[in-house]
């Protein structure tokens, strides 16, 4: 019985007719479903993972401390971090060089998860088409610029309690004055 039905369906092209019915329905309904990119752009869902960007604090300083955990987490080895001591604030670590090779990036967002200071974020930037591949190797400046564009609301810079700091500092100095060689 079932085989008989299948044979009849095959002989009379019922599947093709079904498919064509859908086509003709849309053709006659006159509804356009093609998006006219780039004239119109789709609204991206929350959590869309575009190009990775760097963020800043509200006082315009970059968040990144150059710990290279993103580099360690990256499955496609597209991140290179070279950290160093900051020249303006001694003993502070920062990323002297931060290279994101977008050609290698798989947009998995592991780096964003790995970052201990939330300095990285996935932007909604996806229009990276270019005629020169070298444009896709982004440095920190480019990533910060994109970050400013996509994340205008910035986090507050956490502050250590200055009172506490001064308290310990004075306490220490009253006990033992610091003698630096050649200072006297």
């Amino acid at each position, binding site marked *: 019985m079932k085989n008989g039905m299948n044979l009849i369906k095959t002989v009379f092209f019922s599947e093709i007719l079904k498919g064509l019915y859908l086509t003709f329905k849309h053709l006659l309904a006159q509804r356009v479903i093609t998006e006219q990119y780039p004239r119109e752009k789709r609204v991206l869902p929350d959590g869309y993972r575009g190009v990775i960007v760097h963020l800043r604090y509200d006082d315009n300083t970059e968040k990144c*401390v*150059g*710990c*290279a*955990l993103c*580099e*360690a987490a990256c499955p496609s080895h597209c991140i290179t971090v070279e*950290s*160093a*001591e900051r020249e303006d604030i001694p*003993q502070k*670590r920062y990323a002297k060089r931060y290279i994101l090779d977008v050609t290698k990036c798989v947009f998995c967002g592991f780096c964003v998860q790995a970052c*201990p*200071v939330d300095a990285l974020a996935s932007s909604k930037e996806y229009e990276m088409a270019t005629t020169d591949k070298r444009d896709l190797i982004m440095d920190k400046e480019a990533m910060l610029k994109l970050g400013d564009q996509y994340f205008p609301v910035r986090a507050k810079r956490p502050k*250590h*309690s200055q009172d*506490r*700091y001064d308290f*310990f*500092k004075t*306490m*220490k100095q009253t*006990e*033992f*004055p*610091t*003698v*630096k*060689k050649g200072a006297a």
Partner: protein
Amino acid sequence: MNKMIKLKINDLEVEVEDGTLLIEAAKKAGVEIPHFCYHPKLKPDANCRMCIVEIEKARKLQTSCSTPVTEGMVVKTNSPEVKEAQFGVMEFLLGNHPLDCPECDQGGECQLQDFAHENSPMTSRFVEEKRVFEKEYFGPLIEKEMNRCVSCLRCVRYCDEVVGSNALGSMQRGNMHEIGAFAHQELECEYCGGCIQICPVGALTSRLSMYDYRTWQLKKTETICNYCGDGCLLTLEGVKDDITRVSSEMGAGRNGGDLCARGFFGYGMINHAERLSRPTVRTKGRDLQVTWDWAADKTASGLNEIKAKYGPQAIGGVISAHCTNEEIYLFQKLMRQTIGTSHIDSSARLGHINAVSGLVKAFGTTRMVRYEDILQADVLLVFAGELTESNPITAIKVKEAVRQNKAKLIAVDSYSAGRETYISHLPNLATHHLEIRPGTEGTAILGLLKAVAEGSHQTSLSQTARDKFKESLSSVSYDNIEAVTGISEKTFREMGTLYAGAQRGVLIFGRAITRCEEGYQNVLKLADLAIAAGQAGQPGKGLLSLTKENNEYGAVEMGGASEYLPGLQPVGAEQKGHTLVEMIDAAARGEIKALYLVGENPFRSLPQKKVEEALSNLELLICQDLFPSEVSALAHIILPAASYAEKSGHFTNLEGEVQKVRKAIEPVGNSKPDWEIFSLLERKLEAELGDPSQSQKLEAPSVDVVWREIVTTLPAAWPNLSEEKIVAKMTAYIENGLRSYVVPERAREKEEGVFDLSMSQVLFHAGRMSTYAPGLTTLLEKAVVLIHPDDAEDLEIQEGEEIELKAGGNGSGVTVPVKFSKKLSVGSLLFPEHFGLEMQALLPLTVDPITGVPYGDRGRVTLAKVSAPVS
């Protein structure tokens, strides 16, 4: 062998030796107990309370790092009580610890991180704010971040117990506890880096490699240090092809994980920007940077031309003892076999050859004492006042023997005991210090020898031999000796009895013997002394020669000396080639037309004028080196060589231990390892001689092939003689070798305004190479001449002021700043040999008549204040 003890840890049966600590027994059972203050190198301190365990029948929880095991002990390391106590400790430790792991250089290899993962309550009950310390530096190279400190005091204890530098201390109490140098002064210590290595957290880190790496990025290679002869195992750690850090695994290698400033901070020369990087051919005053093939062709044709024109004996070669055994072997093979010259030498000529010739003559071997023997000795006789600076790791072994094993240390040198910095100094450590006048070591040995020969101690020496000794010393009187050395008869007799009466006596001698006048004779006298005292030829007894460069042993053993073929086989008298000094003389006379200098710079050991004249006289000068030097300025062909981090091979350290060197990074620039250059040259030379098949072989053979050749063809390359053979050789030596000894008659009087100047090695440098390491130049950047403060007071000189030194009232002088040091004896000056060539011109050069060693380390100078004011 101690009694074995059985105990149970977490239901696991373990059997350990009596006296083992519980934490070590647990480790043996495979149970890890979290700990901070415990370290196998240090005595238990039990201050961190982290290693707490539950022991059956004990009333309270016990610290496993300070509890020795007992029979039938039942221990639990993971019971709820133990965990609760450990959680409590961890909560306290983390109460003040900042959350800066991402920034911390220790992150990834931090014990606090590791143990906190397993043994912390995950939440803290502290609501108070954390303690904040300002970040500080301990001097220029050590960074101190007290917020991270867990107060385990490992650094302080390491500094006291192992290094003996006592530079660190623990200050304040409770919350404000802090590690520091005394009164917050800048640290002036040995900079061995031990505190950085031993810190379980990131409280002490290296400023030199600060923020340059994350621990997981480092590629680690175990190799051997190339600064001094101690042969320390180094782990070179680098990010890509850049060495960023050095460490040494605890307990591994001959050094047991201890390093010195040179080892720990001296890696900067490897990736130095001034390294020679391209083969260069200099024609008509123009430098042409060429390919290796071209350079090798040019070298080979140049050498062949000279060989055809003047014969092979017009070519000479000198190799540095910083090269590996394979390289020295290949080099001597290239010179002796392929070229056919007998003029070959190495930088072992500058002193070590004295020790080899003397010891081989007396004992047949140079391998008698190992570090273990130093540790087990009960009397150490040391003729090396600068031991702690020239060979810091041997010094650590000596320190351990003296401090922990209560050995007697007799130090004979011309330094005085005085302490003003935290750099250890042998006379301060010595139980008996014989402060002799400079340059009178030989006479002091005679004094000891006389005391030993005339003493009444029991030795294995035959009566006839003793009589022989007495007879040969008959013309020597103590009065003469005292007049020369300044040491009384009583002292000599006491020291002689002490040394001869030792169960295990070890004699260590260094630069003052091998690199100073009468070097060879003094080595023989030392050998006589050891034989007469019965301190040779038995296990644990013998002589140890300190070497300045890392592979001086290997250089001689691999045939890098004109009188020795590989395996210490002597060359016949008529075939013996020129030594280094003779080569320079022959070049000046025009007999030698081509010199091949591999890493060796005669400008640093011989008078510059003479060397310059000799080298400019040459038709072909090939310089193969790491850095541009006075030689490369004159050279016709410059071949850039690779440093020790860029090649494989073997180094032989001062105990005679042959150790493997491993390649850590690719050669810097376009340089090549020396052995590759030699085998390339060999093929080119043979190709020119009519074997074209050789030129087709472009691939260099592996260095392992060379090593296999050495091992198979030279079974006697490492004469590790049995005791019987040493005794036999020794007896034969006494039978026909004893000479009569003479004391130089004239005791040198102290003249007004005349000082004894000696060149010496300093702790922070080794040769010229270390002056390219940024870490070491930070510690000591410029040459300063050391002077005793009493002398300075007489001359009204302030510290840092410049003085002018002149030799014997000669016209030209050298101007250097002074630094005060109480470790010198009054009337002497000390100058680090690593800087500047001018100082050498002041010192007279004498050459040893037998071994041909140039001695130019000591001399007498007059001193004058420079009148110009110093800002």
